[in-house]
């Protein structure tokens, strides 16, 4: 375990969370704890169809809460979706938000919480540490084992008018409570399971090699890599195995605790740019970019990559640096293909002519601040080109 190298302060913030099978059923008690009476339930059509939204609303209604459902959330949630949610929140005189879903509904709910508590427009909170007051109380029931938005300080909102994703990064938006129930991940299809799993792996890797990592975040990041590397292929093979689902969910949570506090790196900076520019699925973008960015970063975080090799249970004894790098990136690439994420960026519709603009946006992303190897625009362009 590495010790702190500099005199920099380290901070660790996590919401209160309940982990385990049936955790979601605590929603009534926790809504009471938040002093809520009228609740905006944010979700999306897919989760609603899987039944998780209605189950939550039923529990809340039985507990005497008035629920208003907001389901008009799309993947890569848009600023206007946030503002529509705020209007609904205010019209229904809500006093808390319960979000049931994956990264998109959770980020949208975070946006609604910010504006409900601080006023204004969501896009004006773009950036780092921009939220002055605590937002509306926010309770999360994540249904994907991937984004860990339910424990993180990140919200990514799409500004459709600029074809860009904006990041809001502040501890102010770490949710109040997260009820993490592996059962909810059973309804994910294999491809979504793969993408979200690889997203969680990316979180763990980027947090571990982040130049702001700390012994505490390392603990979580390493544990996350272990769990995901060991279970991601199993979960595709036996999707109904609740034990495997629980391991993946725990891996995702561990990764979330790590990256929310150590932050991320170039993979996320570049994926945000892709998501905003071409509305591509976040998890898949991360998965495609991960081994390329790892190769780029390797020499600036060798010690941390040792931890990764160990956590992935790779036999690397006596390997040269070069061999170690190839072994790790090769394993990451193998895992990705093994779980069915096989497309390249080119196959997703990214053209060589897009690269300049994509890199221009990625270079300004705050996630790049904690990337272990300083990158200039050209570096980013090269990585995009490799992944085409």
């Amino acid at each position, binding site marked *: 375990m590495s010790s702190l190298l500099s005199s920099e*302060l380290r901070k660790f913030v996590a919401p209160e969370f309940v982990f385990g099978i049936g955790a979601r059923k605590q929603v009534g008690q926790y809504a009471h704890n938040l002093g809520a009476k009228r609740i905006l339930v944010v979700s999306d059509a897919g989760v609603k169809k899987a039944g998780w939204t209605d189950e939550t609303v039923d529990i809340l209604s039985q507990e005497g809460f008035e629920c208003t459902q907001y389901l008009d959330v799309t993947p890569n949630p848009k600023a206007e979706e946030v503002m529509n949610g705020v209007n609904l929140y205010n019209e229904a005189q809500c006093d808390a938000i319960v979000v049931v879903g994956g990264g998109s509904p959770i980020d949208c709910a975070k946006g609604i919480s910010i504006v409900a508590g601080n006023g204004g427009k969501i896009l004006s909170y*773009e*950036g780092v*540490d921009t939220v002055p007051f605590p937002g509306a109380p926010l309770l999360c029931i994540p249904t994907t084992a991937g984004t860990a938005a339910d424990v993180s300080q990140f919200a990514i909102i799409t500004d459709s008018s600029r074809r860009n994703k904006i*990041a809001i*990064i*502040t501890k102010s938006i770490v949710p109040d409570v997260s009820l993490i129930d592996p059962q909810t991940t059973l309804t994910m299809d294999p491809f979504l399971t793969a993408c979200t799993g690889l997203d969680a792996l990316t979180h763990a890797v980027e947090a571990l090699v982040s130049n702001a990592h700390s012994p505490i975040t390392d603990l979580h990041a390493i544990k996350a890599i272990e769990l995901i590397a060991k279970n991601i292929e199993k979960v595709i093979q036996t999707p109904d195995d609740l034990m495997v689902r629980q391991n993946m969910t725990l891996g995702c949570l561990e990764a979330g605790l790590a990256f929310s506090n150590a*932050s991320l790196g170039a993979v996320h900076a570049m994926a945000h740019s892709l998501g905003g520019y071409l509305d591509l699925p976040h998890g898949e973008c991360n998965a495609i970019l991960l081994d390329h960015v790892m190769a780029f970063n390797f020499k600036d975080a060798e010690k941390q990559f040792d931890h990764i090799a160990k956590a992935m249970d790779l036999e690397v004894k006596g390997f040269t640096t070069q061999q170690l790098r190839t072994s790790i990136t090769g394993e990451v690439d193998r895992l990705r293909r093994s779980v069915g994420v096989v497309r390249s960026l080119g196959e997703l519709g990214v053209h060589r002519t897009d690269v300049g603009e994509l890199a221009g946006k990625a270079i*300004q992303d705050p996630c790049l*601040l904690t990337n272990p190897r300083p990158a200039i625009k050209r570096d980013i362009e090269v990585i995009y080109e490799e992944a085409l």
Partner: protein
Amino acid sequence: MKRRSNKKSQQELRDGVLGLGQKSMRKSYYSQLRRRMDELEQYRGLLNQARDAICLVDMDSLSLVDCNDGAKKMFQLHSDKDTPPPTLLEIIGENHEKIITEWLSQSDEAKNDSLEIEAERTLAGGEHIFILLSLSRAVFADIKHIVCVGHDITARRNAEIALQNSHAELENRVKERTRELAHSNKELEAFAYSVSHDLRAPLRSIEGFGQILLDDYHGKMDDEGKQYIKYMQEGCLEMNALIDGILALSRSTRGEIHIEELDLSSLAQNIVQTLHNTEPERKVTTAIMPGLTCKGDSRLIKTCLENLLGNAWKYSSKKPHTQIDFGTKEEDGETIYYIQDNGDGFDMNSVERLFQPFKRLHTNSQFEGNGIGLATVKRIIERHGGRIWAKGEVGIGATFNFTLLAAAKKS
């Protein structure tokens, strides 16, 4: 994302990402909560400063939810966790139940109306207080409440009661005094009447025996003695006239008056004719306006005109040619009667004495009289709801004006 051009802003941004930014470091629900609680404390402090009672009452159960210090004092409430909170009706009195129930059942559009009730309470110390209560509806935390504000109006109410009492007392005293006065007036008048009446008999015997002396002892008395008896008899006549006057004055304020339509012109005409008959040698021109009427008591009004026309006749006797006018004029919608003569008149400086009994402006040697006539006239006019006033100029004449309420109404 903004351009990050220098190292410092880059560092700041990185601190922010790590949760070390200013806003994120400051983030605390407790400071927010403390601020809100301080605000609440401040509000409660303000509420407690108010002397008025301010109560929050649950609309369904009517039980007290919260109140300020003013309410605790006014309604003598004691916060006790073991006993259930009192209800609004227990606080302000069960007798207001009906009006509050009616108010609560009002239709939606009337729901903004507040209800004002006056309540009374006797405090433990025995002090009785009056309270003006103002009830309005309010919804807090989705629960319907009544806000009841009580204002102590004891001082105002006590002042009102004291004022009413003193009014009543004053009225009683005035009644009492009026009754006493009426009683003594009556006694006085009865006395005057009986005195004047009883004086007549001895007077008649003096006068009668004087006449017998003159008739039967005519030869036995010298001329001087006869002259003395004549003086005696004249004194008797004078005294008889005086008794008549006092009786008239007494009658003018006594007894019922019977109001009827009177023909003043012919009444005056008759009086003047009588006067002419008594002194046919005098050159007197009278101008009596035809068709003068009034409403009044015929006996009293006749006495009145006899006095006024008699005065005009008497006080103009030294003029070679007498002119007497009787008529009416309209002033400010009021009918004013006037009797005017061209006689000796009077000095306006003495006008106050004119209507007082036994106060004469002339000696008997100038003009005969007893000083009761105008006092009688004034009382009669006032009994008819009118006024009388006079204007005079020495050597030129006098005018007596009077009104009668009945006449004024007619116009």
